[in-house]
Structure formats: C-alpha cells, structure tokens
C-alpha cells in the first residue's frame, strides 16, 4: 500500500521458481511420464515425434491455459478486494460467473456444436451480467458505492443461478452433463489458438489494472480519504470494477468456473507481506498461475484415469487455507 518500491527479492524469486517448477511438472507428469530434460527438448522440437506432440500440442497448451486462468482470476480478485474494501470480494461474487454460466448453458442447451461457441456465449453472458450489476448499482445509489456494487453483483448472480436451474431442469441428460462439467471448471482440451487469444486478453487487462494500482492503494482507504488524496473515486472504482470483471469473464469463458482462486490468492500474497496493489497484482498473477497449474495437476493425477473437476480441486485446496487464515484472525 505505497508508492515506494518494495524489496522482497526472495519472495519474487521463490514465486517465480515455484511457477516454473509447477509448469515443468505440469508438462512432465501424465500417462507418459517425462523427465524435465525431455520436456525441455520436446519444447524445442527435439526427441521423438510422439513426445513432441504430447508436450507441444496437449500438455503445454493445457498448462498455459491453467496459468492464464489462475493469473487472471487472482489479479481480478486482488483488484476487487482493494476497491470494494472487502476481503471476501472475488470475481465470482460480481455476477460474472453466473452470467457466464447462463451464456454457456444456453449455448449447450441450444445445441451449440462448434467448440468456439460456448466460450463466446459465456463471455457475452458475463459481460451482460456485469453491465446489469453496474447499471443496477448506479440506478439505486447514484454513486459508485462499493457496497451497492457488491450487492448488485450478488443479486445478478442469484438471478443467473435461478435461470440456470430452470433451463437445466428440463434439459436432456447429456446436455445436463455437459453443462455441469463446464460449471465445474476444466482446462482439458486446451488449444493454442484459444490460449493465445486469452493470453492477449489477460495481459491487456493485467496491464490496465497495474496502471490503476496506485489509485487502488488509495481507494482501499475509503472513499472520502481517497477523494482527499486526489483520486476520482467514482470513475476509478467503476473502471477497476469493469476491467477486473472482464478479465474474470475471459477466464470463465475459457475454462468454466474455477472457484476460490480469486478469493484465496490475494490473501496468500498479502500474508507474505505484500501491501502495494502493484506488487499484489504481480504477485497474485504469479501465485494464481502456479496454483491453478498445480490444481490441474492434482485433478489429473489424484484418481487416474478419472479426471476431477478443476473447480472442486481449487475449492478443496482453499478450505484448509481459509481455516488457517481464520486461526490467525481469531
């Protein structure tokens, strides 16, 4: 929470090493186990053709997608907790997840066959939900009151969940299964084309959030204090809210609902002593990427050959973490 440059080289080194190690493990571990050396060789296009295909076309895009989803959700959560001044704020509370799920479920129920259609519908649903939440908050309160934004998001999310239940109640079994699987989150079946698109999107959103990080530092003090320190409170709050929601929407459209990441990772990074939102965003991006890579690795390997839903694994990881946090708060 400062303009000054923080040190902590060990923290950054540790986070980066952990991320690289998890990424290598994510590529190396699977039905065909590879050594880190073989992973490196295959990435460079050396070795036998099967290994190269497995690494380059199957596992690497999957790991990259997991990293992007984790980074996006964690940055989104860090920014939202700052502007909404609420440690429980997370992207899925804003109606993003509900809206995206409605879009995706409608696309599945409508019989969307093209792989690209479901993510597009999810993204459209998320953007619509966020827009509705912002319009509701504005219509009710006039100002960008954090509490109103949060509650409007919760209301929109509740409405979205009701809509999903109504749509799914009469859906055929295989549609139900597809929709449910999507809502449980997954990075399986990642392809480079989608990953590239998401990378561009997350990077742009992340940079926009970092550019606003100082304002978020000040906004987290409260509205009057932020105004006293020269921040355009309404404008900044809305802008950060919108960017964070769009980043989360992109991750949801690419991988379904991966819960707890946006809530948990910023707390982890704060617990490591990071305070300024610029550092918090960067640290959350790295930690979030590593966390989802690791969670996906667990999802693939815990009960082979079955694959667990990614969202369930992140939630399972989140529970002990929050119990530990509760202990420090009590």
């Amino acid at each position, binding site marked *: 929470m*400062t303009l000054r440059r923080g040190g902590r080289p060990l923290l950054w080194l540790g986070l980066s090493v952990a991320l690289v190690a998890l990424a290598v493990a994510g590529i190396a571990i699977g039905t065909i186990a590879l050594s880190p050396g073989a992973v490196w060789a295959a990435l460079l296009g050396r070795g036998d053709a099967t290994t190269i295909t497995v690494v380059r076309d199957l596992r690497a895009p999957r790991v990259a997608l997991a990293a992007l989803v984790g980074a996006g959700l964690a940055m989104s959560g860090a920014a939202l907790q*700052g502007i909404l001044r609420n440690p429980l704020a997370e992207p899925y509370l804003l109606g993003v997840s509900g809206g995206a799920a409605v879009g995706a479920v409608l696309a599945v129920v409508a019989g969307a066959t093209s792989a690209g259609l479901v993510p597009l519908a999810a993204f459209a649903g998320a953007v619509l939900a966020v827009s509705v939440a912002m319009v509701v908050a504005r219509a009710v309160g006039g100002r960008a009151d954090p509490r109103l934004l949060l509650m409007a998001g919760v209301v929109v999310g509740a409405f979205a969940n009701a809509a999903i239940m109504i749509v799914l109640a009469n859906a055929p079994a295989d549609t139900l299964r597809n929709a449910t699987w999507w809502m449980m989150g997954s990075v399986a079946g990642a392809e480079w084309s989608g990953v590239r698109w998401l990378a561009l999107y997350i990077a742009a959103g992340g940079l926009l959030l970092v*550019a606003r990080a100082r304002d978020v530092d000040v906004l987290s*003090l409260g509205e*009057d204090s932020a105004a006293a*320190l*020269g*921040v355009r409170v309404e404008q900044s709050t809305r802008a950060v809210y919108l960017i964070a929601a769009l980043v989360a929407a992109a991750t949801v459209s690419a991988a379904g609902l991966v819960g707890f990441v946006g809530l948990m990772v910023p707390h982890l990074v704060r617990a490591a002593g990071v305070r300024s939102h610029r550092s918090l965003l960067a640290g959350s991006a790295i930690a979030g990427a590593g966390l989802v890579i690791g969670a996906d690795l667990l999802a693939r390997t815990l009960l082979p050959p079955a694959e667990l839903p990614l969202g369930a694994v992140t939630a399972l990881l989140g529970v002990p973490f929050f119990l530990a946090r509760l202990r420090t708060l009590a």
Partner: protein
Amino acid sequence: MIVFESLVVRYPRAKTPAVRGVSLAALAGRVTAVVGPNGSGKSTLVRALLGRVTIESGTISVSGADARTLAPRELARRVAVVPQRETPAFPAPVRDLVALGRHPHAHGLARWTEGDEAAVERAIVEAGVGDLVERSSDELSGGEWQRVRIARALAQEAPALVLDEPTTFLDIAHEMAVFELLHRLARKGTAVLLVSHQLNLVARFADEIVLLHRGAVAAAGSPLDVMRGDVLEQVYEWPLVVTRDPAVGAPSLVPLRGHRGARDTPSH
C-alpha cells in the same frame, strides 16, 4: 486559502439543505475553526470541498480557483484534508500509509523520488509519529491512527489543511499536541481549517471561530465574539455559562446540569 461563498448543499432525497448559504474564509497563517452541534453541517462543508456531495449553489474556492473545476490531484496539492472517518480495508505499515500522502504529486508510473521521501520524513517528524513508523496499522490505537492520518495529510505539503474532528479518540496530551501542531503550521503560513467539538480548546487556539446551527452561520468572529453564553445556549439547546479560564484567560464553556427535556438533535 479556502473561501466558502453562500454555499448550499442538499443531500439526495433530503427535504431541507444540510448547508444553507454558508460563507466563511480560512486564510493563510490562521487557524479557523468550525464548531456547532451534531448535524449542523460541519462535516458536509468538508465533503463538499472534496466533491463528495453535490453543491446546489454557491462556490468553494481554493487558492483562488473553484474547487469543482480543479482536477482531484490538483485540489489535493492545494489542500490536504483529513476526513472524519477512515478504516483501511487491509492493514499496512505506517510509513507506507504516510507515503500515500504523496499520491497527489505522483504522475502515472513515475518513480518514487528523493523529494517524496524527504516530504514523508518531514511529515513523520512534524506529526510526531516517528515511534509508530515500523508498526502496522492494525496495531495502532484510535489516537495513534489519527496522528498517522495527520502525518499523511502533512506529506501532501499543501498550503491549506482541513481536519474534520481530528482529536476524536485522543487523550489530553495527544489532543494538545495536535492543537499545538495546527497552531505551529498556521504560524508558518498554512491555512488551517478545523472542524471540532472541543469548544474550549478551539477558543484557545483558533484565530477565528465559525459557529454553525442547522446549516447556517449562527456567529462568526474571534473566540471572544463567538463564545458568548446566550449564543451558545441557543445553538446547543442546553443551559451553559461561559467563564474566563482562570489559568489562561480564554473564554471557557461550562454546560450546566439538571436540564431535562432537551430536544433530540440530528446525529450522524
């Protein structure tokens, strides 16, 4: 210098304005105190200055410019404000919190400069929070937190300083220290505007007192002009006497006991 000119402020959906045509000036080198009962419009003046409430009519000028036309950062370079309430969402080191006072001086992604560092150091020394800088905000008492916020406002290095009830939660020593600090800053040329409930201290430290009653100025002038029993009794709706403090000679208010049926006044 901050000048409020015939200011009228009405909260959304409120029947009557919270501030009804208030004019007052906080001049450089002087401590100007705004006093009055709860709900008399004191804090609304501060919020109007910050653009947190819509001004219905009238103007607020800061160093000659209309506050509404100034960019927020420019406003924050001209006047440092310590609002009434503040609870940071996440704990932070005290030094970092004081450093946020440099926010109005930062541009884009510009680096932290030696000038910023020096301003923060000066503010820490001036506000007397040197013993707190290594602590975290969640380890501070209410009074310590208030002093840290004053330090942050000083780090803004603005020619005018506005404080909304800065000595709430402070014990006698720290309260006196704050008043002495404000007095010192004014003598160095700062325009100090202070909202306070501490009439007796205000009477000793302020150069000018503005007494608000139901959104309008009930009395204004030197402490001797404003601290009159009849005026204060009417405004505060409580029997009281004003004496001369035997030790320092300043006018001193003593509320009397045994009064029944005092009318409810609006509260926050």
